[in-house]
């Protein structure tokens, strides 16, 4: 196996074994043949962009000073935490509404208007229109509803 291929393999293996790594590294640094397969410092310097190639760079200070003057953006409560708050509040609200629905005593008087205790608008018996009679006692707090089938030919 020639040095070029060997060196490629060695370089690939280097991170896995520290003892081998050190031996190979020493070899790479000393062997003239291997050195021939690696760019030397002059070649590397010529192939990279140096400070001298750039010349005078932009002054970063004005933009830097500006960014310091700018008020810092308000720290967000983490997005996850925000969602948790929203979900928690919604859950509590839902619980409160459900609780209120079940716990507040159901009052008939609130359903029926005070003047009319019960009103039957339309009654059907066996899928046919029927007549409804409502009897309300004078003093007792009870109401009777009587529903009667219409006789043939009789209209409501």
């Amino acid at each position, binding site marked *: 196996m020639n040095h070029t291929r060997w060196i490629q393999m060695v370089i690939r293996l280097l991170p896995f074994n520290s003892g081998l*790594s050190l031996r190979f590294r020493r070899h790479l640094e000393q062997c003239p043949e291997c050195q021939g397969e690696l760019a030397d410092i002059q070649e590397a310097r010529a192939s990279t962009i140096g400070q001298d190639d750039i010349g005078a*760079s932009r002054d970063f*200070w004005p*933009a830097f000073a500006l960014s*310091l003057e700018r008020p810092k953006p308000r720290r967000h409560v983490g997005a996850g935490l925000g969602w948790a708050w929203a979900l928690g509040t919604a859950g509590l609200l839902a619980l409160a509404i459900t609780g209120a629905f079940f716990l507040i005593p159901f009052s008939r008087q609130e359903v029926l208007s005070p003047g009319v205790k019960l009103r039957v608008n339309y009654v059907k018996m066996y899928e046919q229109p029927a007549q409804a009679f409502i009897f309300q006692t004078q003093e007792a707090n009870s109401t009777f509803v009587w529903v009667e089938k219409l006789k043939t030919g009789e209209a409501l």
Partner: protein
Amino acid sequence: MTDNALVRRCLEGNMESYRTLMGRYREQAMALALNILANYQDAQDACQEAFLKAFQNLDRFDLERNFKNWFYALLSHVCLDQVRKRNRFRHFIGRLRGQDRLTESVSAPNPGVPTYQAMGLLSRLGPKERTAIYLWSQEGYSGAEIAAVLGCSQKTAHVHLFRARARLKAILKEE
């Protein structure tokens, strides 16, 4: 005045000392960023961000350490982060266009923005390899110093450097 003395003065509230530090490293910072990003405008943005981050984290800087190495580590982190974002974006656009991945373009997006011949060569190396070879050849950094900048083990830093040198040699031979 040394870098660390300037940092100390800056921590005491003297902003001019930070301005001096920025002036001292702006060209070197641009060079490192350009070598990693191979794009002038991206390099300028990365430098700007790194200088700001360095200022914001100056109180965490250990005054026993070397400011330049600490700043380089921060800058290379910003640049590598930008490379990752760019790759993700390129991958996304590539998928939109029905390609797996778009080929990397190293040309400057706007006319008038300086381009460097070395950008073409550098684009054929990985971003960590570019960082390693720049620090080694232009700044004379050792494996340990490269490792400190890249935030990896010394062994890994050597691997990046050897790979970069081998690849560069192969490219130079091709040409």
